């Protein structure tokens, strides 16, 4: 890094002006170089979420594209049947009682993995735009270390993009409450990854839609 004296011709500068330029010099050094914008960011966003004028609809539930709202009961039943086959008859009866809770499901996303299934229930967004979710996981292996955990992600182009919350399991059936502000239309699906301290997120996928 060059010194101020090497960079600036000080001839004719008043003491006050030189002090100001020195201060700017220090700020430039402190700030460091601005990054080069990647090609994807060279133009303003033109996605529908930004191209249209702000409106009250922004806070409304945005339907997960793979599961239209009118289809969610069918999907839920199909997924429950899968669970019935995998885990036995106790599954449906046990969970029909839980639906009496105050969590008002808008749509359900079934997920599955090796010997495991999960149901992600998504509720209507609150006034701030947060979508409450309840993730019910069955038969995921318990963590080997206390630093290990699982994480739910939204995916795009087959990649885990947006983290939706971390959780641990300590029994056969674990239910956790999560909340995300994302626009679901921007994503394609969901996955659960296994996270360990040794590997950066996202870790290996253990469940997916």
């Amino acid at each position, binding site marked *: 890094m060059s010194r101020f004296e090497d960079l600036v011709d000080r001839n004719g500068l008043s003491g006050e002006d030189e002090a100001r330029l020195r201060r*700017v010099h220090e700020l430039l050094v402190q700030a460091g170089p601005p990054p080069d914008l990647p090609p994807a960011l060279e133009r303003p966003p033109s996605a529908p979420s930004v191209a249209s004028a702000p409106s009250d609809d922004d806070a409304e539930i945005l339907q997960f594209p793979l599961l239209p709202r009118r289809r969610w009961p069918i999907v839920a039943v199909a997924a429950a049947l899968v669970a019935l086959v995998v885990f036995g008859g106790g599954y449906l009866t046990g969970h029909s009682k839980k639906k009496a809770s105050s969590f008002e499901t808008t749509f359900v996303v079934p997920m599955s993995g090796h010997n495991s299934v999960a149901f992600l229930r998504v509720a209507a967004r609150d006034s701030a735009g947060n979508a409450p979710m309840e993730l019910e996981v069955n038969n995921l292996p318990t963590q080997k270390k206390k630093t290990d955990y699982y994480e739910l992600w939204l995916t795009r182009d087959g990649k885990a993009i947006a983290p939706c919350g971390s959780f*641990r399991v300590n029994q056969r059936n674990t239910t956790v409450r999560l909340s995300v502000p994302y626009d679901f239309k921007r994503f394609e699906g969901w996955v659960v990854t296994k996270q360990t301290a040794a590997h950066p997120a996202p870790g290996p996928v253990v469940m997916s839609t």
Partner: protein
Amino acid sequence: MQLVTSDGELIQRAATGDRSAFEDLYHRYARPVFGLALRRLGDRGRAEDAVQETFASIWRSAGSYKPDRGPGAPWLYAVARNAIVDRARARSEMPADIPDEAAPGPGPGERAEQSWVAWRVHRALEELPEREREVLALAYWSGLSQSEVAQFLGIPLGTVKTRTRAALAKLSEILGDDVE
């Protein structure tokens, strides 16, 4: 140097659905937001997503900006910071193993101050003419000497020094109170 249109005015116009005002804001702040996200998240892909999220938030919430509470730059900074922190927080490790001792290096207050300085400086650089911005970038961050900068640009050494001084003077005006 006075901006033709202030950040605050652009935010207010964006709140009414003025797309061109939003684009002006984007061109002024895309690089500072990306720089902030990159420093905080340490990953270009995630930083890109944070920029997209930031400007989506600006578009959605521009109506919440109150000019009587301050100029636009701090409001934009807060929106960007919130979007970036949300992403970083969701990726943090489990709290089970938080170390007992504080990590070395700058604390949260110093980090915030550094981020704000970088934000203001990078924003101000966007106001400079391209030829002056180029000279500053080469002089400060390329590792070239002034003579090498002159050779690289094919201009006399005196011109490099003149442009450097002029650029610093303009930055001083744009940054205003930050230089006091």
